[in-house]
């Protein structure tokens, strides 16, 4: 359904846009609720609407996935209806739903409606972003979800750290967006085209501006994926943001940024693959080195997980650098256990945070695993999943990533990845070590304020689901890989 260039009234494929629209609608209803619903029922109303929005978006994306065996370009080639976008939208919807569940127990008093509205809006922006078909919609989608996230990060206005994180994220993020925009402009200048497919066909690839534009697009997306050396904002923002927002960002933002990086590079710049695969593998190595070494030194669990997310981005960049179909599959598969473990890991942090009412460090976790066996066991699963141990999908993800690197002939990337994994085991196990192997601390400041904390079934549901996905993706590899294979088929490998 490629529309001719002379657009008068482009035919709009509403189904393809429906996931983003569903989340936009949820955001609008939440905002209305913030005004119309009395404050007593506002939280339950917003949670219901936002949760329903993510569920509907996920279902619609699944329908799109099912009904789109071939890629279609929509609305003057500005959007792409394909399985890659649809599968990523399903993931985003899942992460968003989990984030809503994690947020439920976060008893914020003000901005309740706005919080869930922004969460849904960010999800909608991501759904739009992953189906971008040209550089304009790419930038539009990026700004759409980024602005929502800037506000979400700073929404805990009573906490200095939250405001600081919001400001940092805004400044660094805008910088990244500007670089992306500049790169898009250079690319447009060199080729005279905006659409990814059109750029591939256009002449002008020899132009140095073209390569510079590509490099800046990569850098702009790397900011969002928090790949080193564009990661400086990550630890501060992850630490300062409300933990549920951190959970959402670490899973969803990274997922869409990496998927879009893959799409842009493979669709628009296949001729330059020799250049960008080297660039991406350099980013991967730098991310692995910096993420892992910095994580070793962290005491705050949120900062530790932030650096771990930098190193995880490194692993996923290896899959992109491989520039083959196996790499695409590896990336999409990796995102499933990674996203689940990431949301789960931050959700467990949130649980402890709500008990203590202050920052969670390795020290304040001492002995907690024995007190709260469910959270403790879940923490085990997530840490082992990150580290790529058996019986978690993380191991299969790493296996696919390394296989893709081998197929591309990048055997030295496998070696670096392997060394990075060995390093990462130290700090991933440090978290469970403090929870189980140090004596339950006798420190008075670790006594839970006001007796045992209130039960939080929504949080436990989210953590349970994350555990199921992390472990399940180990046992049911074939169905997930089949989905990933179908999704990657929409890319011109």
């Amino acid at each position, binding site marked *: 359904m490629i529309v001719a260039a002379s657009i008068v009234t482009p035919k709009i494929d509403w189904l393809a846009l429906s996931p983003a629209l569903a989340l936009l609608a949820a955001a609008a209803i939440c905002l209305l609720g913030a005004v119309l619903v009395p404050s007593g029922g506002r939280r339950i109303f917003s949670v219901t609407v936002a949760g329903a929005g993510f569920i509907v978006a996920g279902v619609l994306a699944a329908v799109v996935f099912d009904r789109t065996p071939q890629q279609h370009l929509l609305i003057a080639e500005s959007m792409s209806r394909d399985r890659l976008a649809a599968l990523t939208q399903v993931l985003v919807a899942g992460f968003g739903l989990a984030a809503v569940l994690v947020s439920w127990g976060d008893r914020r008093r003000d901005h309740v409606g706005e919080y869930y509205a922004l969460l849904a809006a960010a999800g909608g922006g991501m759904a739009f972003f992953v189906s971008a078909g040209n550089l304009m919609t790419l930038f539009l989608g990026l700004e759409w979800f980024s602005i929502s996230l800037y506000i979400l990060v700073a929404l805990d206005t009573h906490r200095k750290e939250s405001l600081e994180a919001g400001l940092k994220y805004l400044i660094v993020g805008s910088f990244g967006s500007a670089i992306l925009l500049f790169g898009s402009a250079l690319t447009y200048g060199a080729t005279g085209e905006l659409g990814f497919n059109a750029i591939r066909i256009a002449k002008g690839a020899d132009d140095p501006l073209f390569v510079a534009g590509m490099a800046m697009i990569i850098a702009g997306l790397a900011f969002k994926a928090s790949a080193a050396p564009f990661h400086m904002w990550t630890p501060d923002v992850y630490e300062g943001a409300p933990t549920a927002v951190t959970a959402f960002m670490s899973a969803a933002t990274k997922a869409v940024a990496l998927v879009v990086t893959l799409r842009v590079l493979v669709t628009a710049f296949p001729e330059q693959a020799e250049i960008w695969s080297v660039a991406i593998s350099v980013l991967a190595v730098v991310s692995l080195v910096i993420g892992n070494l910095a994580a070793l030194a962290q005491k705050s669990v949120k900062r530790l997980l932030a650096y771990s997310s930098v190193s995880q981005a490194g692993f996923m960049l290896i899959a992109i650098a491989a520039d083959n179909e196996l790499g695409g599959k590896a990336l999409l598969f990796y995102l499933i256990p990674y996203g689940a473990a990431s949301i789960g890991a931050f959700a467990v942090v949130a649980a402890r945070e709500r008990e203590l009412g202050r920052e969670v460090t390795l020290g304040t976790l001492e002995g907690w695993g024995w007190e709260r066996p469910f959270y403790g066991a879940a923490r085990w699963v997530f840490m082992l999943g990150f580290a790529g141990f058996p019986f978690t999908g993380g191991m299969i993800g790493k296996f696919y990533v390394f296989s893709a690197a*081998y197929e591309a002939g990048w055997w030295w990337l496998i070696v670096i990845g392997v060394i990075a994994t060995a390093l990462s*085991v130290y700090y991933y196990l440090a978290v469970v070590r403090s929870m189980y192997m140090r004596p339950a601390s006798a420190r008075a400041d670790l006594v839970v304020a006001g007796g045992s904390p209130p039960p939080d079934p929504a949080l436990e549901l989210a953590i349970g689901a994350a555990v199921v996905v992390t472990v399940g993706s180990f046992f049911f590899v074939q169905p997930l890989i089949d989905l990933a294979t179908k999704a990657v088929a929409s890319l011109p490998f």
Partner: protein
Amino acid sequence: MLTSLLIVLPLAGALVVWAAPLPREATAALAVLVALAEVALWIVTLVGFDFASPVLQNSAQHEWFGDLGVSYTVGFYGFSLWLAGLTVVVGAASIGFGAWVGRDRARAYYGLMLFLIGAVVGVFAAQDLLLFYVFFEAMLIPIYVLVGVWGGPNRISATVTFVIYTMAGSLLMLASIIVFGLSQGTFSLIDSGTSGNDWVFLGFLVAFAVKAPLLPFHGWLRAAYTEAPPEVAALLSGVVSKAAVYGLIWIVLRHFPGPVNSWRTVVLVLAAAGLVYGSVLAFRQPDVRGVVAYSSMGQMSLIVLGIFAADNLGLTGAILHSVSHGLVSAAMFLLAAMLIQRTGTDRFADLGGLAKGRPALATIVMVVGMLTLAVPGSANFAGEFSILAGVFTQGWGYAVVGAVAIVLAAMYTLRLISGVLHRDRDDAVQEESLDLRLGELALVVPLVAILLALSVWPASITERSFPGSAPVTSSSAASP
């Protein structure tokens, strides 16, 4: 089917123990029951096993993910069935010991012990490289926690060192697995052919050299074996180290004939050096567990000598010695634990004179000691003899080193026996320190009984490990 059951039963038992909110005694009873059921299941497998057939038996196969050629394929050959048998027997004794001393945090403890047993059985049964890696890595998690939570005062540094060593080795192996499997087009150990790539070979070799441990990779050994709870140390030295034996035989020897030949001298020299080094250090240790730890290193080096002897005699001797060393070192660690329970220490300086008035303890320690030093007629002697006869074909020097090490083994074992049982009674030994009790005898006597049975009939293993033309010998017989 039986093989899958052997793997799944302890793993499922672990899940039940973790999930079911049973009181401590019930948890312990359940875990012991599962461990005994596992032994019974293994005996059923043994009875139905055709040792004359060289093909995979009791096999099961399921697709896991087809696009890279990875499947769930398990089954047993003669030699791996023996190693699995060692696992279930030592596992049952270790869990029994945990129940006897009444470990705290019972649900976590017994679940992890059962999980460990299931993972080790999985290692010996796996016929797919990635599946092998899964179980090989899965062993690490329970060991990490068991040492880190229930271990001695320096448990955390011991367990972290152990994990880092092992992870470094096994991740190199993962890289090798990926390269080997993708270049072969399948990860199946049955279908894949041979490779001449030295780097891939070294990845596997280092992983198993850490696990065994071979000489330069033994840094984790002393702390891990002494800080671990003794029954976990029994599993570690007796059983988990045998994963290296399986990997060296079934992956390295069979799939890398070329590199094995070109690196054979290096491995043999390292093994010979490790044998002497471990034995000398064992002679110098101040405590029972230190002696057993370093003797374990020496004996594992001896087994590696046998594996790399490129001779059927050495290889079958390696299997026999793996089983008998596994039983002996497990029994030794359990005995050390029983000593510590009585006296609070296992340092020779504080012990002595325990033989007087404690006939059961004295007899058992004496018998196990005699087996450790490989007194002629024992299963250990049969194993060592075949290994040395086998490695003699590679050069008389190795056999001489091995013979010297046997003398050293006699020295450190006799020092251990006299340090504990004889001499004058020292401060830590009280008049009222009990003899071995019935529960303790029930744990150790079966191990000793199996060892004595093997001593009478070592051919039960040596003639039932590699039937017919073993693929291992055919590939290594091509050596110059």
